[in-house]
């Protein structure tokens, strides 16, 4: 404190100059920030801006190929702006409500899109669904892209599937078969455990707690059916209903076979554990293959989540990805042109070629990557009586953290399920009443 009194005028002057410089820098950086947000969110010179959350290297370059191919056709031009997926997720409401929004954005159809459509934030693109290749899309997809008011607000581009993945060589070595029913599944778990293998890997730690929701989703659609599942997630039932208790009773039956580190490892580490033969199998989506070594991919196979109640129509999780446009776009005609293009077989094949190739095109005429694994996955979804998206996509991104808390707690303390479900319902109610 005394040093201030003894400091020379020179140092004080330096301090003032420094403070002035800092202030000016702050002002200038302020200008830069506001300038860049202005230009990134509103396309310049008539080009349609596409804001993409596909930030993993393969997917990003595939998107660049796709936009380059579109621009080569002449006519409308498009520009791609890739944002880190976590940033994109938190910023999406801001994008949609800003006065100068990006024209087109990557996101999910169904309940999430409908939530924005009900707030009049999405462009009605029903007309492009009447003609061209979109008219040939399946009825299930048409329904998925329609909002509660009956307007189409979404264009799907690709989907993937979830299944219980395992290594063929390991199952052969252990002398076990793919199970079809819940009892066979439990018998398989017992057999693996007897051989000293941890039967089920999870991967709900290290920031990917949402992976555990796949177990909840599948058990719920197998026991209570897809219709009940969607209603539950929409707030029409309560998480402390007896039906939901049944889900956790079934889950508790296989809990002893779960990897005790299930909530400590992220899904990437959990899949590595499976590929290194430390765990027997895991319920996961095909996206895990992006990180798996290429030479292991041929050894990977999956089976359908076991049937629990044969009287419940079989539903599968087939999350769909695609695009919606902002209602405030100033390029309505151009953005619709781009959306129609993104729905073509040509566009979807360009994307699949550039990306890891484990997802499936939504266009019925587009060719998938053709590997046995992808063919099996396509058959799984096409044979399903109903297709659900995933916990957050069938409800909202805001509801996901409530599930993460409830499910990780259940995995650690299954005996406290009654209080866990009461707390889950209370947390979910806060989100629904928002």
């Amino acid at each position, binding site marked *: 404190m005394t040093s201030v009194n003894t400091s020379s005028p020179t140092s004080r002057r330096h301090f*003032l100059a420094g403070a002035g410089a800092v202030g000016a820098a*702050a002002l200038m950086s302020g200008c830069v920030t506001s300038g860049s947000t202005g230009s990134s969110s509103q396309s310049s010179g008539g080009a349609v801006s596409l804001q993409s959350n596909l930030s993993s290297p393969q997917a990003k370059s595939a998107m660049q190929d796709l936009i380059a191919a579109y621009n080569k056709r002449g006519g409308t031009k498009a520009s791609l702006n890739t944002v880190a997926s976590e940033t994109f997720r938190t910023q999406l*409401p801001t994008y949609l409500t800003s006065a100068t929004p990006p024209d087109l954005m990557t996101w999910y159809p169904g309940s999430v899109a409908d939530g924005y459509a009900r707030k009049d934030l999405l462009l009605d693109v029903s007309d492009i669904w009447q003609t061209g290749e979109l008219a040939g899309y399946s009825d299930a997809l048409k329904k998925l892209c329609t909002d509660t008011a009956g307007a189409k607000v979404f264009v799907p581009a690709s989907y993937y599937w979830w299944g219980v993945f395992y290594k063929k060589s390991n199952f052969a070595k252990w002398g076990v078969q793919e199970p079809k029913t819940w009892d066979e599944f439990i018998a398989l778990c017992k057999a693996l455990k007897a051989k000293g293998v941890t039967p089920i890997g999870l991967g709900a730690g290290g920031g990917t707690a949402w992976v555990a929701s796949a177990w909840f989703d599948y058990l719920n659609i197998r026991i209570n059916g897809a219709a009940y599942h969607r209603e539950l997630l929409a707030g029409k039932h309560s998480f402390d209903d007896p039906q939901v208790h049944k889900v956790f009773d079934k889950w508790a039956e296989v809990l002893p076979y779960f990897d005790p580190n299930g909530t400590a*490892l992220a899904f990437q580490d959990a899949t590595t554990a499976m590929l290194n033969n430390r765990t027997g199998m895991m319920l996961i989506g095909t996206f895990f293959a992006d990180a798996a070594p290429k030479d292991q991919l041929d050894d990977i196979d999956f089976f359908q989540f076991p049937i629990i109640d044969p009287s419940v129509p079989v539903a599968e999780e087939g999350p769909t990805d695609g695009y919606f446009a902002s209602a405030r776009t100033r390029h309505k005609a151009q953005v619709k042109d781009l959306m129609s293009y993104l729905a073509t077989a040509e566009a979807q094949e360009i994307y699949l070629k550039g990306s890891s190739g484990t997802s499936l095109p939504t266009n019925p005429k587009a060719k998938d990557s053709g590997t046995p694994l992808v063919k099996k996955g396509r058959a799984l979804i096409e044979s399903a009586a109903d297709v659900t998206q995933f916990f957050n996509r069938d409800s909202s991104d*805001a509801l996901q953290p409530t599930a993460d808390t409830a499910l990780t707690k259940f995995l650690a303390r299954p005996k406290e399920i009654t209080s866990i479900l009461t*707390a889950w319902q209370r947390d979910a109610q806060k989100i629904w009443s*928002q």
Partner: protein
Amino acid sequence: MAVLTANSRARRGRRRATRVPPVVLAFVLVPLLAEGFWVFWPALQGFYLSLTKWDGVSPPQFVGLANYREMLHDSVFHTAALDTVLWLALFGGLSVVLGLGAALLLQQERRGVGFYRAALFLPVVFSLTATALVWQAMYQPDGLIDRTLSGLGLGHLAHPWLADQNTALYAVIVPALWRQIGYVMVLYLAGLKGIDPALYEAAKVDGATRWQQFRHITVPQLSSVNAVVLSVIVIDSLRSFDVVWALTRGGPYHSSELLSTYMYSTAFQSLRLGYGSALAVVIFLLAFGVIATYLVRAFREAD
């Protein structure tokens, strides 16, 4: 440079004038304007938002004090508040004790002491998120810590440190502390350098023991540094976010939740921006309250 010379000429010209030179005025007002626009205005908006219900999309809805009333019955808020107090006590207390200890050990100019000072200060230079990634790898099942334990024959202690509700909070404090100690040490080193050696010599002549010297010279002489350290620690504790978010995201099931992480997840994951703003206001009041009380007391003593 032009600004500098203009400034000095102005000083010389108006040595006896009471009017503040316009350049100095500009230096004060321009940053104040920038600060007002980029800091105070958003902060005031935050206060307003805490009185609303807002999902970030629809227009905010005024709800009065409902958000604050909700806090009274929110068990997660209670956990987060308790954890924040625990964090303040452990993280703050230990970093003062260990930082002062390190400063006392390293204050003498001996050969190689610069190396140790630099080594202790080095973690401050790293981004806390990068630090957290390294620690996450160490805490992993089969990570460095578990393997060291089993190598020492303590395999039964191996543990999913970050995934167990009983250890998660403490496992997160360690990396935060690892960084903070170096920072506090540097502050105290500077303070120790400012103490007049004559005081110690006089004490030695009077036959004071080492402990008496520490208790009656070092501690009182460091009181001005203490004010700085206290402010730094309270602010750092209450805004501790990056390391917790990177390691546990407040989990498992809220067991390592701090007010800051709860504020973030409420506002940006649950999209309850009104309630999130109310939490931010509470954090602000806590930080401001603690520091203001201390400063008022310190100034009163100085008078």
